[in-house]
């Protein structure tokens, strides 16, 4: 820390924070500096994704690098930005950086230095990183780095996170600053608190635990929500503000204007730009944000995206399926028969295969979304649909969440932090899980073959159309639910769009690769854990049961076999199915059967449904377990086993059209993901909204599925 002289390296590793305006390239630089040595966690108390990684500089101990969310100034308007201010005004916090890499887009220096001057006035050791140096020549800029460093009083390094230039120099600068944090202490602040703030500061300066005047001023502005400010201090600040008639917004305007006046001449003297030309982005936007073509192109892009998704992921999925089938068969051959082998093959391997087979689709979906984001298209999509979204009580930015929701609701819900209006944000969080996330794909794939015949119409396969229909149903229900919530909830808070549209850029492929890899890894770990656990528990529940009931079932089967003279195979099948019925899982299934009978489900589906409430992708694994128990000899595909399933009462197949559609609709609407509920709870700060979310989605699922079944059967 700046005030403590040198850094005490023995205590903890030094922390270096990447801070800067949104889209200045912090994450790109972070990826370049840390490669895959990153950890993703959460900032304490809130679910803003915290990315940290380690960097080795010369002989220094490893440095921890933290990628902070983008912020425009020390006066935050969204939760993401609040976090930056919160951590940088808390010298006692764990994340308080020993040095800051202030990342600025060199082509927008006239805007990006606002936050720089504010942080500088907090007396934080900083390096100014001029990112996007590759654009300097392209845009005809001339930048005098030495003069800039002299005028701002900090080391300045020009780098390009895209072209990987200037990194060695940057590392040297970091090393230098960490060794001697006192070297670049500011001599005088960029801004002296003006008339509007002077009185309140005079009152509070001694009482606040502040490093300097500007720190005190920020505490006076933000005491009400800063977590590290104790309640008592908060009251005192409030009193002083009222007494001196402190007007936070006016003081902020005054400060900001003055800061621009201070740093503008510096930029003017050190950065020279050639005449402005109509840029490439402008010409592209003439088409992509056109009143009519814009939305049309958006829809076409989405259609192509999903078309490509299913066209390209077929063969890797078949490959993975084949690997797990072979693995299961091999294990069964190699090991002696017994409960352990059954557990391994029917529980673990079948369960894991059920998750991993969908990795290609999830990876592809994240790949497309990340590219759209990197290119700069997402901001345009938000602009195009803002007016439409507003009618449904949402914000243009909700589009990003609703698209990402098709990959996974968790990062989608987290992306709503950029929506400043609480009601719009809440609505987006509530309805995003209705979009068909990739975990639903396996369920759809299996059930659609029972619901829709093969064949095609005008070149479109029926099953493909049904698939598209389910996605559409998800989006439609999300919008309509938002509308209902909008009418029910009242809010006076003003809502803003005010969205910056970045220039179009070719993606930095390193960023794309790392992002996709991390999302897929998280999916495998999170879903894999749950599914493995459930597979094992389910296997146990379906193998064991109340001893009396199991014994009775066994005796019953024996009797039947003797009476009817069944062969060995048939006897085994009968035994297995009777035992499943007598097992604990069977009891659970039977217990909920009356409730799901109107939806067209039997107690076996009940077991799958029950286990799906932890994570919906478990459905397939559960089916594998339930049906492979019926016959352990031949490893038929789950789908074939399901097709063979006959309802003993009616003699008809269990998976007829009505039941399959009813199940599909149920899985479109039902809230079956513990992880999403947990994120909703954290994001909304309590149990109220996740409970409402769970109830409304599940009720919707139940009622719709019942209607579908009753109409179709």
């Amino acid at each position: 820390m700046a005030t403590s002289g040198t850094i005490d390296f023995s205590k903890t590793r030094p922390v270096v924070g990447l801070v800067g305006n949104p889209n200045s390239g912090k994450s790109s630089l972070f990826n370049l500096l840390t490669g895959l040595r990153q950890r993703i966690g959460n900032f304490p108390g809130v679910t803003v994704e915290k990315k940290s990684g380690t960097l080795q500089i010369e002989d220094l101990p490893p440095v921890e690098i933290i990628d902070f969310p983008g912020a425009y100034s020390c006066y935050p308007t969204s939760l993401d930005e609040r976090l930056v201010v919160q951590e940088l005004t808390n010298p006692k916090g764990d994340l308080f950086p020993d040095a800051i890499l202030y990342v600025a887009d060199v082509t927008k220096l006239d805007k990006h230095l606002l936050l720089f001057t504010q942080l500088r006035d907090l007396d934080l050791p900083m390096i100014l990183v001029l990112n996007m140096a590759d654009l300097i020549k392209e845009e005809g800029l001339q930048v005098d780095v030495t003069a800039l460093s002299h005028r701002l009083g900090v080391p300045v390094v020009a780098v390009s996170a895209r072209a990987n230039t200037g990194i060695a120099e940057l590392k040297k600068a970091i090393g230098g600053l960490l060794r001697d944090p006192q070297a670049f202490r500011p001599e005088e602040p960029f801004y002296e608190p003006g008339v509007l703030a002077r009185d309140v500061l005079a009152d509070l300066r001694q009482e606040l635990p502040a490093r300097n005047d500007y720190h005190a001023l920020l505490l006076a502005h933000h005491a009400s929500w800063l977590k590290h400010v104790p309640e008592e201090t908060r009251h005192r600040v409030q009193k002083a503000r009222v007494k001196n008639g402190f007007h936070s917004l006016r003081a902020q305007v005054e400060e900001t204007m003055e800061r621009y006046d201070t740093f503008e001449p510096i930029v003017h003297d050190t950065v020279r730009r050639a005449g402005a030309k109509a840029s490439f982005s402008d010409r592209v936007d003439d088409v992509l944000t056109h009143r009519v073509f814009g939305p049309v192109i958006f829809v076409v892009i989405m259609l192509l995206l999903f078309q490509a998704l299913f066209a390209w992921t077929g063969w890797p999925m078949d490959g993975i399926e084949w690997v797990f089938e072979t693995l299961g068969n091999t294990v069964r051959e190699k090991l002696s028969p017994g409960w352990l082998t059954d557990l391994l093959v029917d529980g673990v391997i079948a369960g894991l295969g059920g998750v991993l087979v969908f990795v290609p689709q999830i990876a592809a979906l994240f790949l497309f979304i990340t590219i759209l984001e990197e290119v700069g298209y997402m901001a345009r999509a938000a602009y195009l649909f803002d007016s439409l979204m507003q009618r449904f009580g949402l914000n243009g930015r909700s589009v990003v969440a609703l698209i990402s929701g098709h990959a996974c609701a968790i990062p989608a819900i987290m992306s709503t932090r950029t929506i400043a209006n609480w009601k719009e944000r809440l609505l987006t969080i509530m309805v995003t899980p209705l979009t068909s996330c990739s975990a639903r794909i396996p369920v759809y794939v299996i059930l659609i073959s029972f619901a829709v015949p093969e064949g095609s119409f005008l070149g479109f396969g029926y099953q493909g159309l049904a698939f598209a229909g389910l996605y559409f149903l998800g989006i439609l229900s999300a919008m309509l639910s938002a509308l209902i919530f909008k009418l029910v909830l009242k809010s006076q808070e003003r809502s803003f769009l005010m969205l910056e549209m970045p220039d179009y850029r070719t993606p930095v492929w390193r960023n794309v690769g790392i992002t996709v890899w991390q999302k897929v890894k998280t999916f495998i770990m999170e879903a894999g854990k749950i599914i493995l656990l459930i597979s094992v528990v389910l296997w146990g529940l379906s193998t064991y049961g109340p001893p009396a009931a199991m014994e009775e079932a066994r005796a019953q089967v024996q009797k039947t076999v003797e009476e009817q003279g069944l062969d060995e195979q048939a006897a085994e099948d009968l035994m297995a199915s009777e035992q499943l019925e007598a097992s604990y899982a069977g009891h659970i299934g039977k217990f909920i059967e009356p409730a799901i009978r109107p939806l067209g489900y039997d107690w076996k589906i009940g077991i799958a449904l029950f286990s799906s409430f932890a994570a919906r992708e478990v459905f397939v694994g559960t089916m594998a377990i339930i049906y492979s128990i019926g016959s352990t000899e031949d490893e038929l595909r789950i789908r074939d086993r399901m097709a063979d399933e006959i309802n003993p009462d009616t003699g008809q197949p269990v998976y007829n059209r009505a039941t399959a559609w009813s199940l599909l609709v149920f899985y479109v609407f039902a809230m079956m993901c513990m992880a999403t509920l947990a994120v909703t709870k954290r994001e909304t700060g309590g149990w109220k909204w996740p409970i409402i979310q769970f109830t409304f989605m599940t009720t919707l699922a139940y009622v719709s599925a019942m209607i579908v079944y009753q109409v179709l059967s």
Partner: protein
Amino acid sequence: MPFPRSTAASHFVAGMSGTIERFTNENLACKLLDIGVRPGSRLRLVRKGPFGGSWYVKIDQQCLALRKQELACILIK
């Protein structure tokens, strides 16, 4: 010569431009100032968004999406 009166940017039509004089809403002023929009910046309405209500605006070199209510708080001279 008529006295130059300032107009809210929401009264403009696509293609019109002018210089920002001041903001009439403090909340919005703070947000705009943060992203670098200031009195003295040149504002041009590039095009109206689909479904009405939002505008594609160019301020100095920067492209922004603003709602009509937001434009109403920006006075142009």
